[in-house]
């Protein structure tokens, strides 16, 4: 009995850990798309953030400088996206794809020029990473039945960015639904003409939304290379940006549902890591390639079957043309 409980707790623990970049990226997509700017470039911004965080942390030895630099880099990419989509009303999907491809090429190119190890960064020493934090009393309560392992494994022992992420969820929801800025941001995604009529700049609002997405993606990237991993590895995002986007659609552009979808994806990912090489009853051992594709198949099935009626922000993807 205790054994099964421990297994469940460990899977849940891995789920929470792996959901960190997904939740951040999905919230980024949410903020951007609520203001009607489609963001396929989550993947690229995250990868850029991961590279810059890894590089700066390694070179300075300070994980905080790494995090800051990752945020700056990601916001710059977000501004580029804004420049193309908001200022020049370009195709938002094309711009996002372009950013993904630029970063996928640029990160290993610069990585190679700096470190000469196949485009990756050297592995980071513990001082240049976000290490796991043991919450007070975790060791003391470990032996308490049920609650002990839950507290000491599931709640304690994560890195700072994971805690930050879970603190950001209610904050982003509060910002979107309870502040004047959030109201305007949502309005600009539904009915930009009305916002414009009220004398508020549609462009500047959308730029701010895109920059918030940049900040969140930067943290997500830093979490990949300096918290979950111990160095930057080429293509380390492995489609997480797209999974986050799918989670956002599955979550109907609402923070709570989106986070639940992210946890679901992270759970498949955690399960994936646990299932490798395990003999299952009836089916036997599943080939590793099929386990690896689990999250992707899951995404397609969820998008196809269980989303129900999807209501995107009304103006999503449509550039705003002010009448002259």
């Amino acid at each position, binding site marked *: 009995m205790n054994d099964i409980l421990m297994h469940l707790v460990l899977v849940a623990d891995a789920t929470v850990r792996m959901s960190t970049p997904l939740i951040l990226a999905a919230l980024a997509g949410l903020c951007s798309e609520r203001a009607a700017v489609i963001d*396929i470039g989550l993947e690229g911004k995250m990868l850029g953030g991961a590279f810059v965080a890894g590089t700066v942390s390694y070179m300075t030895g300070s994980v905080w400088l790494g995090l800051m630099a990752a945020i700056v880099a990601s916001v710059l990419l977000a501004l*580029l996206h804004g*420049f*193309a*989509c908001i200022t*020049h*009303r*370009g*195709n*938002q*999907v*094309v*711009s996002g*794809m*372009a*950013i*993904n*491809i*630029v*970063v*996928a*090429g*640029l990160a*290993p*190119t*610069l990585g*190679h*020029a700096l470190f000469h190890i196949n*485009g990756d960064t050297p592995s980071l020493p513990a001082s240049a990473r976000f290490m796991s934090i043991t919450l007070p009393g975790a060791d003391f309560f470990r032996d308490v039945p049920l609650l002990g392992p839950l507290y000491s494994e599931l709640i304690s022992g994560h890195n700072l960015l994971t805690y930050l992420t879970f603190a950001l969820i209610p904050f982003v929801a509060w910002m979107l639904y309870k502040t004047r800025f959030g109201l305007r941001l949502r309005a600009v995604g539904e009915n930009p003409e009305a916002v414009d009529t009220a004398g508020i700049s549609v462009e500047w609002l959308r730029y701010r939304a895109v920059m918030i997405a940049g900040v969140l993606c930067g943290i997500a990237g830093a979490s990949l290379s300096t918290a979950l991993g111990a160095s930057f590895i080429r293509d380390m995002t492995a*489609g997480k940006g*797209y999974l986050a*986007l*799918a989670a956002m*659609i599955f979550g109907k552009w609402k923070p709570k549902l989106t986070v639940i979808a992210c946890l679901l994806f992270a759970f498949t990912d955690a399960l994936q890591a646990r299932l490798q090489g395990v003999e299952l009853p009836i089916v036997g051992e599943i*080939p590793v*390639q*099929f386990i*690896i*594709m689990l999250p*992707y*198949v899951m*995404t*397609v099935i969820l*998008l*196809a*079957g269980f*989303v129900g009626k*999807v209501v995107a922000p009304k103006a999503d993807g449509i550039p705003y043309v002010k009448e002259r």
Partner: protein
Amino acid sequence: MAQSKLPGWVNAGLIPALNLLTAFFVSGLVILAMGENPIDAFGYLIYGAFGYEQAIGYTLFYATNFVFTGLAVAVAFHCYLFNIGGEGQAYIGGLGIGLVCLYLGDLPFWAILPLTVIGGALFGAAWAAIPAYLQAKRGSHIVITTIMFNFIGSSVMTFLLVEWLKKPGSQLPETSHFPDQTWMPKMWELAEKFGIKMAHSPLNLSLIIALLCCVGVWFFIWRTRWGYEMRAVGRNPDAAVYGGISPAKSIMIAMLISGGLAGLVGLNELMGVQHRVIINFTNGYGFVGIAIALMGRNHPVGIFFAALLMGALFQGGSEVAFEMPNITRDMIWTIQGFVILFTGALEHMYRSRLEKIFIRKDAEGTV
């Protein structure tokens, strides 16, 4: 967007050229930032792509792949569908081509060729079919589903190559070699038959097939009923429904043709050069198709020239990586990303300024 009042040559020539130059300029800045001389780099690039006869052969060889994937993206785009799954469709299409060559390889080449074309197209189309169906019937976002199918396709192919199709006794995840008579004839071999000497390069008969596909796509999009319906759905699905057109049917047709075209990459890569199915032979060609279609304005003629340019970038890029140890082949992707950004997303950057210049001139002319 209002009807453009710009002269045709500005629209089709000057604006794409300006956008492209901007992309190269920004790429040059990146090269400069890495401590290399961008002018030297572009010199190596041009020499590597066009400087000698063999280089031109390689450039055209890469261009052949890009014609297939570029046409694939363009066909879908005429129905306003973003097919980002060209990579996976080309990969699975290669499986179809490989299976034909491995299991029916005893047939003579004139019988093999149409069978492999059908095999590649069918498998590629099949891989596009599920995302297409989900878009048509359930409204699932095709950008995300096709990307997911790239990842799934990659896993499926690894599994098949490792577990089922691997050459007996080998450790490498690749199939046995195709029988000799299934190899696509190289251009220099064909030229030799006519007494013409050409430098040896992997350029092969697939280029001709790619050019035929260009003509076929042009005919399909602008001269057939299905093509018309597709464009109508792409422009305005509501109006198309009133015109008695089924958007779901058009989406399916557009995506199946798109996947089929992408599936033909294997003709060039596998039957032309590798002569076996290897892991990751698509090498990102599917993604390049997006840039090609954007640059070529979704028209077969434009796509051919865009493919030529990208082919030059791929071939010349190897030369740059060879001459400048600080720069790797990844730089090609960076340049490509900038090309997509400036010719695609920022295509209107110069438009308003040019409109001012040309329309003022026009007004002066009429006065």
